[in-house]
C-alpha cells in the first residue's frame, strides 16, 4: 500500500477519462501511477524527475503528455510506461 513520497508537494493530477480509478501524479520525485483511485501508487516513467503537470488524451487515453517544471515536454503512447522527450 502507499507508494507516494510522504509530506511532499503534489504538483498535478491526471485521471483516465475511461477509468477514473487510474490516476497519474507528477512530483519533484517523479511520476506516480495509481490503479485504485489513489489507495496505492507505483513509480512509472523511469528516471524522470522535477515534474510539474501531466494530462491524458481524452480521445485516446493511452496517449499522455508530461511537463517538467522548466517546460520540457515528454510524450507517452503506452499509458505512461515509457516517455519520450518531444522533439
Amino acid at each position, binding site marked *: 500500500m502507499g507508494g507516494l513520497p510522504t509530506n511532499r*508537494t503534489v*504538483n*498535478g493530477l491526471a485521471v483516465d477519462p475511461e477509468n477514473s480509478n487510474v490516476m497519474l501524479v507528477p512530483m519533484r520525485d517523479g511520476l506516480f501511477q495509481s490503479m485504485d483511485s489513489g489507495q*496505492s501508487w507505483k513509480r512509472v516513467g523511469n528516471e524522470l524527475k522535477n515534474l510539474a503537470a501531466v494530462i491524458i488524451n*481524452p*480521445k485516446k487515453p493511452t496517449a499522455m503528455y508530461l511537463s517538467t517544471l522548466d517546460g520540457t515536454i515528454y510524450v507517452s503512447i503506452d499509458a505512461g510506461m515509457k516517455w519520450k522527450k*518531444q522533439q
Partner: protein
Amino acid sequence: MKNKLKPISIFVGLVWLVNAGIIFAEPVRDLLMAANQNTSNKSPVTFEHVHSLALDSAGQTLFLGAHTGLFRSDDRGRSWNKVSLSTKHAHLDVMDVTTDPREPKTIYIATHEAGVFKSTDGGRTWKEASSGLGGPDVHGLAIDPNMPFKLHAAVREKGDGIYRTTDNGGKWIRVDDGPQGEVKVLRSVNISTGMGGIFLYAGTSTGLQRSPDCF
C-alpha cells in the same frame, strides 16, 4: 457544518523516495541539464515555472499554464505560442487550466493575480469569470466531468477556501475551508461518494487529499 478535506492516509512512500534519490541522482541531473539547453535553443518561449497542462476535449490543442502566462500548442507540444489573456493585466501567472469535457472550445484558467478567466472560442478571446470569489489568487480549478456547468476553485490568501459555481463560472459561492497546505491542483474525479456527488481531489504542498464534493 463544513467538512475539511481529509488527507488520504494510506500514502506511505518513504522507500520509493529513498530509492529514487540514490539510484537515479546522476542520470536525472544530466537529463535535466540537456533538456534546459535544448529548450532554450529551440524556442524564444520562456515558461519560468510550469503549473498546469490541459488538452481540449477533442484531444487536439495543448494548453500550458506557467508563471509567464498561458501557452498553446497545436503540434503536440513541439512548439508553443503565448495566448493573449487580458489587456488589464500586464502579467498573469496561470496556476491551473481546465477544459470542458464536452465543448472543445471552452477553457477555464485560474490565475495568481486576477481570478478565473473563461474562453468559449478555443482560447482566442477571454472573459473574467470571478464573480463571487473572495480573492484573486486561485490555485486550483476543477470541472465536474458529468456536469460541466459545475466547477470548484481553490482560493488562497484573501478569501481563502473552496468555491463552487453551478452556472459555468457565472457566480461563485464559498463552500468549504479547503485542504491543508497550498493547493497546486484541483480535480473532480468521477468516483461516486455513496452520499451523492463525486470526489474532489487536491494536490497540495503536503500531499494528495480528497473530499466528497457534496459539502
